[in-house]
């Protein structure tokens, strides 16, 4: 019996990795080939850039266009453009008529908002390499702007402090344990509450006391105030409007439908026309306040439509289950329907938020208010800067692009964190 083959011993499994050293073993079909890097690069290039004769032609055409755009952009930014129109009018573009002596109000507000961004990032997400790069690039952009055309060392330092606040908030919350627990729920509630509180607090800081008032909101600061007011006001108006439109009571649903359709019927410029000529007789107040009201009223109609879409997308069973366990109508709406509907409607609502951010430029087209674009127009109306129209507009576009791009990235984060679109 001794000629039986020996029982094969299982191969020695690799030792578990030493603590502090992680080793990820991919399944075989995902393991990278072991061919040398140069071969892999060559294969990638052939497959993605030169797959066939027509593919090569396409690559050449696209490459020429891209090279043309890039060289044109580099030539414009570094050679032909005269950026003095920007650096000379920094304060005009940033805050315009806001008294320079009260600048601390702006910096404190910025620090608060940056801290909240950091807290929110640490609570619901985490910052990857790209996010750090983005912050670094924006920071470098701002410092570069400050370093030209006169001393603004203190502004640079204040801005750096604000960025430090962002990272402080982020590092504070990102260390808290990530698993689901009451503690984490409370963390989210507190940060959410702080975010909800931040808008009135910032408005208080900016507008109350000293020699400042709504009239002093000017330049980029006006954009930064108008957009959140429009977004928050829009959501606050949009939820009851959406519920009203879906209501079974005819009088309520008809008036809500009429409101939504009439507001969506005219462009925002038309409603700003109303703010200028008609709203004065109805609510009075400062022109800036009227513009804010119009922004909120306008956004509210769009938000209501997105929330209504989400309400219709909810499965009927949710309503019925809520009824079956004996919830009242108010409880049903507050506990079952609204949380789910708001969650579904996050992506379109962020889209609307980006849209309203871009639309804050319209304020200076028709109203005698000067936001960033309006102040850029004032800058190029100065005698020595009249030829620098393109530079000023490019600068304004870049500023708007930075914020809008950031918002769209954050919305992607939120979607992923909430698992929207995954089921």
């Amino acid at each position, binding site marked *: 019996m001794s000629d039986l083959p020996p029982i094969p011993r299982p191969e020695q499994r690799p030792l578990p990795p030493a603590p502090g050293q992680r080793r990820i073993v991919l399944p075989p079909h995902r393991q990278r080939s072991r061919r040398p890097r140069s071969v892999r690069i060559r294969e990638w290039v052939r497959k993605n850039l030169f797959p066939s004769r027509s593919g090569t032609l396409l690559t050449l055409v696209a490459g020429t266009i891209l090279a043309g755009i890039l060289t044109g952009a580099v030539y414009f930014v570094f050679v032909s453009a005269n950026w003095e129109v920007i650096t000379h009018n920094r304060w005009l573009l940033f805050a315009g008529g806001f008294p320079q002596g009260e600048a601390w109000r702006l910096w404190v507000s910025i620090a608060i908002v940056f801290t909240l961004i950091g807290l929110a990032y640490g609570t619901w997400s985490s910052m990857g390499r790209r996010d750090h790069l983005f912050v670094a690039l924006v920071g470098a952009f701002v410092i570069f702007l400050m370093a030209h055309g006169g001393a603004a060392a203190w502004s640079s330092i204040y801005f750096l402090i604000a960025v430090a606040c962002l990272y402080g908030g982020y590092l504070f919350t990102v260390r808290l344990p990530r698993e689901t627990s009451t503690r984490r729920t409370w963390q989210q509630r507190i940060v959410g509450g702080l975010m909800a509180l931040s808008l009135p607090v910032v408005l208080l800081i900016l507008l109350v006391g000293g020699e400042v008032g709504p009239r002093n909101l000017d330049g980029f600061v006006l954009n930064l105030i108008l957009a959140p007011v429009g977004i928050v006001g829009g959501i606050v108006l949009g939820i009851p409007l959406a519920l009203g439109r879906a209501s079974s009571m005819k009088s309520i649903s008809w008036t809500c439908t009429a409101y939504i359709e009439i507001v969506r019927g005219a462009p925002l410029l*038309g409603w700003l026309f109303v703010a200028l000529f008609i709203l004065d007789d109805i609510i009075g107040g400062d022109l800036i306040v009227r513009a804010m009201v119009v922004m909120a009223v306008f956004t509210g109609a769009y938000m209501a439509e997105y929330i209504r879409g989400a309400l219709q997308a909810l499965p009927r069973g949710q309503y019925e289950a809520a009824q079956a366990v004996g919830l009242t109508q108010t409880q049903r709406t507050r506990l079952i329907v609204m949380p789910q509907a708001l969650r579904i409607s996050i992506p379109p609502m962020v889209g609307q938020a980006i849209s309203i951010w871009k639309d804050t430029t319209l304020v200076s087209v028709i109203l005698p208010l000067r936001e960033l674009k309006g102040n850029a127009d004032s800058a190029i109306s100065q005698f020595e800067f009249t030829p620098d129209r393109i530079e000023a507009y490019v600068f304004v576009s870049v500023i708007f692009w930075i914020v809008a791009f950031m918002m769209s990235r954050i919305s992607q984060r939120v979607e992923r964190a909430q698992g929207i679109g995954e089921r």
Partner: protein
Amino acid sequence: MSQQPSTPLPPPDPVPLIFQRGFRRLVQQGAYIGVTALLAWYVYDALNLREFGFGFLDDPAAFKVANQWITDIDGVTNNRITMYLVGVWSSVRVIFVAILLSTLVGVVVGVARLSSNWLVARLAMLYVEVFRNTPLLMQVVLVYAIFLVGAPIIQEVLVIGDFAFISNRGLAIPWPVPDAGWWGVPDWFVGVWVALLIAVGIIAMTVRRQRQQLERDTGQPHFANRWAFGIFAVGALISFIALGLPVSIDRPIVEGTRYLEGIVIRPEFAALTIGLTLYTGAFNAEIVRGSIQALPRGQTEAANAVGLSAYQRMTLIILPQALRQMLPSITNQYLNVNKNSSLAYAVLYDDLFRVAGIIQNKAGHALEMFFVIIVTYMLISFLISVVMNFINARVTRVGV
């Protein structure tokens, strides 16, 4: 155990009125209507609606409306409503051109974003990210600024091949106008020619349909499209010559500081249209990409399996199916183009909004003018919706 006689249940207490559903709804609606009516009364009172009326629109306009196309309607003698309609026509032109071009841009860029060519996909992504995240207003004024700064002044007009002129007054190109022709026919003979063209078109379509039917019946190629096109081209040429060439080409000329003859594409119109096209095109591209990605992968694979080329795969299999998915969102974008055309105000293009603003400036009556504006925009939106619903019904006629 003897069964105890069951006592009949006492009659249920009557539900108090305030807990009855019908009554509560009545009270809620009553309160709601009351509050709304109060608000409405307050607004009515504040606006002083007794002077509401549209009589002022019949007064002479006494202002100029620039950027007219072909027509040159005089703002001094005509009344305000006429000039407003001229503005509406200017808006409609911008909206029409921007919708067409933005669709084209959207389809091309949307397909390019999914290209297997890395560089092309990146280029398309760059376009989308740049133009979706900057304000439309900035795009319009930037294009306008580039025209104004980049184009030569009219005294140094740039001449292209002796028939087109470029300056900061716009691009002037030749344009066909009615002409007496060989036989000295009157102007309205162009109308006769157009009527003939329509007749020839109907004949061509009938032939095409017959050929298609033949193709279906016999399985042999009968070149329906080529026949139709050939009949139309020959018919158009013969009728044109038979009528004695009633159309001549009008070349533009520069006289002093303005263009005469020909047709002029003004920088205001170009800036607004290009801005709207680039901005809406970026959104359309995302819609096209999303609806292509929503198709099952099997469609691509099946197209490959039957040996279609990449172009055939896209135009015959992928895009027609993606069209069903993208139409509602694209319609939404078209409605946005309609409303965004009001940005003409920023480049001083005399569209309906700007003309309305001028009228309000001269005559007051802001409320009436706003009423007119919103009704016009709603009408144009309605027209776009009707057309798109018609297309949608045709596209979704065949179930999948």
